[in-house]
């Protein structure tokens, strides 16, 4: 009897296991969003709702009360169930469908640096999430100082994605949505606030670093990071 149970269990397990093995790849669908969701899809949603006049709050990537109200209003206007949940139908009504995630809706004359701020905020969040505010702005400033420096790539993406430049980029943690404080720090840095006066490097002295880094001119220490030029 016991044997049988073990046997059935092992067969079930084997099938399950093989089943997952041969499952090819999952299709990316825009996630269903609801109260409490966070991240880039929420930013996309808020931007679209703001463009169309349903949403007045900050585009912060956090699905809260104001976003929920805006979604319900939108759903009512479009004959959808006003449940405040953004599923496939609501996405479609918003003009963002499953297979065109980067759907190219752009205002007629559009340059926006909001996405750049979000990108910067992600690095700040991943590199200095536990640091004081001043240390967060400082990390943002270092990245922007690199863009201006001849020894580094000349674009924000070039600097951020330079191989080996930032640990959080190498290990993928920059893909986590940034906190409000990181977003604010990115904005301050973009607007020119620089608490480290032109520093090009920062590192955590408690972690192993390349000897070469200590040959740089140290500007100051903030929290767990040393900043240098």
């Amino acid at each position, binding site marked *: 009897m016991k*044997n*049988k149970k*073990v*046997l059935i269990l*092992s*067969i079930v397990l*084997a099938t399950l*296991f*093989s089943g997952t*093995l041969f499952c090819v790849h999952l299709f990316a669908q825009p996630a269903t969003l609801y109260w409490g969701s966070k991240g880039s899809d929420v930013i996309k949603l808020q931007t679209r709702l*703001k*463009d169309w006049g349903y949403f007045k709050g*900050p*585009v*912060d990537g956090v699905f809260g009360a104001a976003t929920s109200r805006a979604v319900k209003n939108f759903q009512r206007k479009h004959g959808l169930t006003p449940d405040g949940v953004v599923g496939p139908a609501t996405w479609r009504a918003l003009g963002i469908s499953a297979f065109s995630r980067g759907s190219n809706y752009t205002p007629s*004359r*559009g*340059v*926006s*640096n*909001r996405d750049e701020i979000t990108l910067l905020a992600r690095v700040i969040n991943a590199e200095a999430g536990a640091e*004081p*505010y*001043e240390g967060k*702005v400082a990390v943002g400033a270092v990245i922007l100082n690199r863009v*201006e420096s*001849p*020894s*580094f*790539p*000349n674009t924000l993406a*070039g600097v951020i*994605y*330079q*191989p*080996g*430049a930032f640990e959080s980029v190498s290990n993928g943690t920059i893909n986590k949505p940034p906190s*409000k*404080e990181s977003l*604010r720090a990115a*904005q*301050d840095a973009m*607007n*020119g*606030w*620089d*608490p*480290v*006066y*032109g*520093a090009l490097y920062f590192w955590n002295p408690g972690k192993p670093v*390349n000897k*070469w*880094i200590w040959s740089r001119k*140290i*500007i*100051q220490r903030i929290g767990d990071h040393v900043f240098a030029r």
Partner: protein
Amino acid sequence: MREISRRTWLLTVLTAGLLVVGTGYWGYTQHQYKQRLLTYLNNRNQKAFFEMVSQVENMEVLLAKSIASGSPHQRSLLFSNLWMQANGAQNNLGTLPLAHFQVARTAKFLNQVGDFAYALAKKDPDKQQITASEERKLAQLHREAGYLAVELQRIRAKAVEGLLTWGEVENQAPKLKKAGLTGISAGFEKIDGQMQKFPTLIYDGPFSDHIEQKAPKGLTGAVVSATEAKNIAAQYLAKGNKPLFRPVRVRSVTGKIPAYRVYFDPAAGTGPNAVVDVSKKGGHVVMLMVNRDTGGKTFSLRQAENKADGYLKSRGLIDMVPTYSLVQGNNAVISYAYRQKGVLIYPDLIKVKVALDNGDILGLDTLGFLMSHHKRNLPQPKISQAEARRAVNPNLKIREARLAVIPTDTLGEKLVYEFKGKLNGDTFIVYINAMDGTEEKVLKVIETKDGPMTM
């Protein structure tokens, strides 16, 4: 009983077999997948590397041609092409998996050559000669580009023979040593070390070496003590007569401007923290940051500007004119320029960040002002506003005009007429040099969701 156990046994063996086969197949596909990814990455790196080498080779050739050419117009074209090649080389270098210290000087060299070529390409071939010192710089850069090209060709030769692959450089180094080969990164490191011995390059562009060594012009007054700095900082954070913050510690900051950094905690025990930098010489506030999340908008941009105006005046920062405002979320950032005898001095820049929920000042940045502010001997414009107007595209409907001083890329300054106007529904700002009537710059005002932005 026995039969059952035999059947059980058989089935178990079968199941186990399935598992083994399944796992094996899975492992094999995973391995293949990893190999494909590695190959893909390797190919991308190879492409960037090969492209970069040919771009550096092109640079060497173009520099040689520009030295040999006698026609200013031909030279102009060669410089434009040189700028493009250098830019591409620098771009490709930035995507290669090499450590920063192995390529820093090389990257700088590529950027500087491109930048220098751009500065030369900008010259009007009919009016502006290439100077003797620029000729000397070209010859110098040509030698350096030649060195770089030859060294890169050495690495490329190995790569072509398949002796080198890109990968985890550290893991490969000992293995490579055994095989008597050097990795790509070691080659780059050697080049960079050699290039560090090249002389610095000073020319008319933002990547010139002299930009690094500028000293602040706006630090007037006597040296202050840490206690004085603390009091000044507190005064900049004060709102009415009850303090929102109390200073907790003071530290030194060595930067472009040596300063005391004063840290503040909320006076009430809860609330935002703040940081204020006060310059050691003269006790000027260089930077102020309040770490607060603003909730909601009750103040308009206009009201925020009034708040910022009052704040600057009450702190003795007078003759500042708001030039440009931006709403971001629940904050407004307002830029000010100094005004001397009716002329706007853009390099003397101050930025103020205002919370739109209660009108408090959340940020101040006077670094630009302190670096460049001094009493200027402004020249008399050599051309009238009416003459300058004629240099503007006639299709632009001009609505505002004024005299201003704008910064050049190289920290120099130029006296210009500023014209603001509309064309095809877009707003533009055009700067015409007040001395010779040439168009210096065109900015486009971009209306974003957050307010205007200039580019």
